[in-house]
Every structure is written in structure tokens, then in C-alpha cells.
């Protein structure tokens, strides 16, 4: 049973066994520990989710600086709001939702101020560079409502239901938007190839 974690004595360094248990604990257990003020448990959650949260924010905002701010603000907001988290949804979904809202706020501000977006982030995978850039360009060219769904489901790996909760959309809307996003991406890539 991983629900029970032994608390070390105050004033002493945490023993290695504690860190092992934290690393093996489930998200929900860590979230409950973090809600009780355990910073190590929250740090483990940050380690687990920072890449996925950053990817989500980066593909929505299309800006590394904005994505960084979104994830940082989102994680701090999550820490503040852990006390009110009722654990009736998955902790990951809750975190995704916070960061998606931050990213939407960035898009809204950008729409009001018409900030230029000049960053197309590179990735660290070993597929052919041109093809990867084509895919990222095609993804960036999608409208935000389709891009968000494609990123949530195909890049981050959320299920349809999880994406519906995180994006605050009906499940049917998520499904139809994902289908159309993939169709548009395929069309863009085919056009690029033919050109």
C-alpha cells in the first residue's frame, strides 16, 4: 500500500527510502501529500509533468517564453490551489486545465495587443529535420481551437475524455475537432510534399 508514507522527524534530512517512496507513489498520493504541505511530493509532480505541460503550452502559444511563464504560473497556482482540489478528477487533468487556461490568457492578450510571434521552437527528436519542421509549421498554421485539441490528444497523449475536461469542451466537440485537425495536417503535409 503506497498511501502511507513515513514522515521523517523534523529537523533531520529525509532518508533515501523516503525519496524512493515518493518517486514510486502515484500521482494522487503525491497530490494528497502536497496538499498537506509536502514540498518534496510536489517537486516530484513537477518533474513528472513539466515536459508535458511545457509542450502543451508551447504548442498553444507558439512561444518559448510564454510557454515557460504559463507553466511556471500554472504550477504555482496549482500549489496554491491544492488545498481546494477535491480529487474527484485526475490530478494530471487538473494541472493540464490550469496551464491551458494560462495559455488561452496569453493568446487573448496577444490578440488584443497584436504581438508578433517569431519563434518556431525546434524539437529534440531524430526524425529528418525538414519533415519535422514541415509538421511543426503545419501544426502552427492550424487555428488555435484545432491545434489545442491535436496537441492535447496526439502530442501530450490525453484521452478524449481527459482532453474534454482539460479543454472545457464537450467530448463530441473534441472528437470532431481532432478529426478535422488531423485531416488538415495531412492535407498541408501532402501539399508540401507535392510542392
Amino acid at each position, binding site marked *: 500500500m503506497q498511501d502511507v508514507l513515513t514522515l521523517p522527524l523534523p529537523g533531520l534530512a529525509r532518508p533515501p527510502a523516503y525519496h524512493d517512496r515518493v518517486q514510486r507513489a502515484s500521482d494522487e498520493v503525491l497530490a494528497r501529500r*502536497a*496538499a*498537506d*504541505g509536502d*514540498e518534496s511530493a*510536489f*517537486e516530484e509532480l*513537477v*518533474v513528472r509533468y*513539466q*515536459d508535458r*505541460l*511545457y*509542450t502543451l503550452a*508551447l*504548442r498553444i502559444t507558439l512561444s*518559448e517564453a510564454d510557454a*515557460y511563464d504559463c*507553466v*511556471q504560473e500554472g*504550477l*504555482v497556482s496549482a*500549489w*496554491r*490551489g*491544492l*488545498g*481546494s482540489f*477535491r480529487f474527484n478528477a485526475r490530478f494530471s487533468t487538473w494541472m493540464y486545465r490550469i496551464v491551458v487556461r494560462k495559455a488561452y490568457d496569453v493568446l487573448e492578450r496577444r490578440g488584443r495587443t497584436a504581438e508578433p510571434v517569431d519563434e518556431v*521552437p525546434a*524539437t*529534440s*527528436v531524430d*526524425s529528418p529535420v525538414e*519533415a*519535422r519542421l514541415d*509538421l*511543426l509549421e503545419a*501544426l502552427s498554421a492550424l487555428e488555435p481551437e484545432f491545434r489545442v485539441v*491535436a*496537441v492535447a*490528444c*496526439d*502530442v501530450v*497523449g490525453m484521452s478524449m475524455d481527459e482532453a474534454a475536461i482539460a479543454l472545457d469542451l464537450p467530448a463530441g466537440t473534441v472528437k470532431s475537432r481532432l*478529426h478535422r485537425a*488531423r*485531416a488538415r*495536417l*495531412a492535407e498541408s*503535409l501532402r501539399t508540401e510534399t507535392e510542392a
Partner: protein
Amino acid sequence: MSQNHDDIAARLRDEASATAPERLRADVMLRVRAEPRPQRIRPRRSFGRSFATVAVAACILGALVFGLSRVDFGGGSSSGAGATAGPERSQALGVAGGGTPSYLAPSTSAKRAVYGADGQAVRPGAVDKALTAVPRPLKAAIYGRYQLAAPLRKAFGAIDPHHGPNRR
């Protein structure tokens, strides 16, 4: 079409993921440690639930009080109540002379012809005395099962309205 979509999904999964900057974790934890620790909010009990609890407790208490008020502890309270009710209550209950109502009064046939074991007629007053002298089941059980010492029996009779100095 479906195969094409699966290829797109696979490419997105493999090629569109990004790695968070290394300083992100440190920056987040720096800010987290500067924040006050979260206080978990316990769900408050709703008003309806609290009201239902109070209502159920009040009902149980009321039923308890009502039940206790109906229990006959000594056996003499009903006649006492009838005696203190006075002639007004007796009038209302249709009783002549006060005291016990007519539907609780001893049958006249019992007073009319009662015979003893030897065939001799027994006086009506003796019948009433014999009726009131019948011990209650609990007392009979105590008397029969435990041979109480004389002082204890005397003391027990003192608090019993049917025996001892308070005998009616």
C-alpha cells in the same frame, strides 16, 4: 483515410513533443517554497444535513420524554391523579363521586356475590382489600426468589405503597 490520420497522430507524438528548460523546475520550486503552505479545505457539512441531524435528535428526545411520561413506576399515580382531578374532571368523565372513572371502577357483580373457600359470603370491603393486597409481579418475584431479611423487607415495604406504613 484512417491510416493517414494514424500516421499524423504518430508523427505528432514523436516529433512535436518538447523538453522543458532545466531551470523551470528550480524556478518553480523556488517560488513554491516562498509561498505559504496550502491549507486543505475540509468539506463543510451542508445546512440541510445539519438540520436533519438536529431534527432526528429532537424526535428521539421527544419520543423518550413521551415514553417516560407514560411509564407507571409506582402503581399509585393513576389513582392519585384521579383523586387530585377533583369533581370537575369526574364530571367530565361521567363519574359519580370523583376518583376512579366509571369504566375503571370495579364491576358491581364482583361486589354482589363473592364467596370464600369455605362457601361463606365475603364482605365487599374484604374483596377490595384482597385485590389491593395482590403483589405486583416484580415484587412477587423478589419475595419468592430471594428470602429477604426482615429489616430489608421492612424497608422495601416502606417505599412500596402496597406494603409497610405507606400502605393504602
